[in-house]
C-alpha cells in the first residue's frame, strides 16, 4: 500500500504529477522508496540534492570526512558556513532544508565490509559516489550479493563514466573491471584535479537513473557504459556484457561474502594518512628541512605537473612530471640522496616505485608532499 500525498506534497510535486510516466502513483512510489548515497562529495552532492527534491522518502548518506574549503568548488551540497563540520551533517541539514518531509539518515563512518550490509539493508538502490577503488568494489559486491542495483559514476578531470550495475539483469562492475589497477597508477581527483561541474553532470545522470529505477520507467544504463567528455561535449556509449567468469556474479562465483577490499586493491587501510607508505622510504617535511639546513646534498625532484609550480614550489627542486620520470632516469645519480615530492605524497610514492625498480636506493618520498611542507615548515606557501 503506497503512502498518500498531503496537500502540501501535491503542490510541491505538481510538475511531476503532470508527467504521465510519474503521476500521482509514481510520486507515491518515490515517497515510499529509499536510496543510499555512498559519499557526499562531488558526485554525492547533486545526487542527494536531486533525490531529496524529487521526494525520495528515505535517503541515507555515508561519509566520514569533514567539509574542507577545497571541496566547495564542486561539492555543492555543502556551503562555506559548513567548513569544518561533518559532511553527513552538513548534507543532511541542506537536504532537510530543501525537503523537510523526507527522512535523511546520516552515517558518519567509513563504509566497510564490517558495516556495509547493516547500513545498506533498508535501502532500495545504492548510489556509488565514492572516490576510491576499495569502496567501489565493496559497493559492487554488496549489491550483487544483496540483489540491489548499483548506480555507478566516476570522474577524472573532464571525463566521466556512468552506468547501472544490476547483476539480476546484466553485468556488474567486476564484469568490466575484474581487478583494480595497481595503487598509484590512476591518480585521484585530489592529485589530478577535476572540473568542478563534471561531477554535477555525472551525478545528475546517476540521480536520473536512480529515479527511473525507483519509478520503474524508461531504459536504464544497465548493460551500457556512458562515456562523457566535457571538452568535446560528447556522450558516447559502449556495450557491457556479463562476464561468464565473473568471480561475484558469474555462474560459479568465488566470492560469497564481503572481503577485505583494501587488501584486494593493494592499498593502505583507512587508518593510514594520504600519501603515507607506512615504510622507511619516506621522510617528514620537518626532517627534510633539518637535512637541508645542515647542508646535506639532496636532489629534490618535484614530480607534479608544470602548471602546479605556479601554486607553490620548493627552491632548488627540479621538476620532472611523474609521466616523464621513466624517460629521465639516466639524468639522475643513484649515488646521490634523492627526495621526491608532489602535492600530497601519492604521485611521489609512485615515482619512488619507479626509481626503486630502476635500482635507486638512496631515495625517499616527502610524506604529505609540498602541502605538508606548507603546513609544517614554510607557512608562506599556500595549501591546495
Amino acid at each position: 500500500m503506497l503512502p498518500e500525498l498531503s496537500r502540501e506534497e501535491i503542490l510541491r510535486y505538481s510538475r511531476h504529477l503532470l508527467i504521465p510516466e510519474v503521476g500521482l502513483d509514481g510520486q507515491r512510489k518515490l515517497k515510499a522508496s529509499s536510496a543510499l548515497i555512498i559519499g557526499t562529495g562531488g558526485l554525492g552532492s547533486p545526487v542527494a540534492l536531486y533525490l531529496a527534491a524529487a521526494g525520495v522518502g528515505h535517503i541515507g548518506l555515508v561519509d566520514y570526512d569533514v567539509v574542507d574549503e577545497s571541496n566547495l568548488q564542486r561539492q555543492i551540497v555543502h556551503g562555506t558556513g559548513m567548513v569544518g563540520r561533518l559532511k553527513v551533517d552538513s548534507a543532511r541539514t541542506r537536504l532537510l532544508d530543501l525537503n523537510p518531509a523526507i527522512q535523511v539518515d546520516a552515517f558518519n563512518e567509513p563504509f566497510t565490509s564490517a558495516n556495509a550490509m547493516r547500513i545498506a539493508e533498508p535501502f532500495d538502490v545504492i548510489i556509488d559516489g565514492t572516490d576510491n577503488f576499495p569502496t567501489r568494489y565493496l559497493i559492487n559486491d554488496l549489491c550483487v550479493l544483496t540483489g540491489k542495483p548499483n548506480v555507478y559514476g566516476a570522474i577524472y578531470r573532464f571525463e566521466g563514466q556512468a552506468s547501472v550495475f544490476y547483476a539480476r539483469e546484466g553485468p556488474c562492475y567486476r564484469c568490466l573491471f575484474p581487478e583494480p589497477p595497481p595503487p598509484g597508477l590512476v591518480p585521484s581527483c585530489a592529485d589530478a584535479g577535476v572540473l568542478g561541474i563534471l561531477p554535477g553532470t555525472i551525478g545528475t545522470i546517476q540521480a536520473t537513473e536512480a529515479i527511473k529505477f525507483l519509478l520503474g520507467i524508461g531504459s536504464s544504463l544497465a548493460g551500457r557504459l556512458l562515456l562523457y567528455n566535457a571538452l568535446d561535449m560528447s556522450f558516447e556509449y559502449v556495450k557491457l556484457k556479463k562476464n561468464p567468469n565473473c568471480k561475484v556474479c558469474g555462474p560459479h562465483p568465488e566470492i560469497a561474502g564481503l572481503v577485505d577490499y583494501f587488501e584486494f586493491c593493494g592499498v593502505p587501510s583507512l587508518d593510514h594518512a594520504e600519501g603515507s607508505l607506512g615504510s622507511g622510504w619516506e621522510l617528514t617535511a620537518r626532517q627534510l628541512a633539518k637535512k637541508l639546513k645542515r647542508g646535506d646534498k639532496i636532489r629534490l625532484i618535484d614530480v607534479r605537473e608544470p602548471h602546479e609550480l605556479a601554486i607553490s614550489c620548493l627552491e632548488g627542486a627540479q621538476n620532472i612530471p611523474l609521466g616523464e620520470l621513466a624517460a629521465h632516469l639516466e639524468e639522475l645519480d643513484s649515488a646521490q640522496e634523492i627526495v621526491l615530492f608532489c602535492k600530497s605524497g601519492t604521485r611521489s610514492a609512485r615515482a619512488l616505485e619507479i626509481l626503486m625498480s630502476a635500482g635507486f636506493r638512496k631515495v625517499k618520498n616527502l610524506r604529505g608532499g609540498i602541502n605538508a611542507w606548507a603546513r609544517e615548515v614554510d607557512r608562506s606557501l599556500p595549501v591546495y
Partner: protein
Amino acid sequence: MPTLKIPTPLRSYINGQTEVPVSGTTVEQAMQSLMTEFPALRTHLTNSAGQLRPFVNLFLGEDNIKDLKGLDTPLGPDDILRLVPSVAGG
C-alpha cells in the same frame, strides 16, 4: 590506419594526444605498435608477462574486444579502438 582513442589518465604518456593512428590488422598488432612508439605506456597496459592488464578494456566501436575475438580481433583501416580506463574519482 585504425585509430586508438586514449583516455585522459594515459595521455601524458603519448605527448598529450587524444588519439593516435596505430598500425596492424589485429588488435594485438595495433597495441604492440602503440607500445613500441610510446614505451612508457607498456608498464601501464601490460603485466610483467607482457599480457594486457585485467583493468585495461579495449572497445572496437561499441563492443569490448573480450566479447569479440580478444587480441585476435581483426582491425580495418577505418576502425576506431578505444581504451576505457578504471576511474575512481568521485
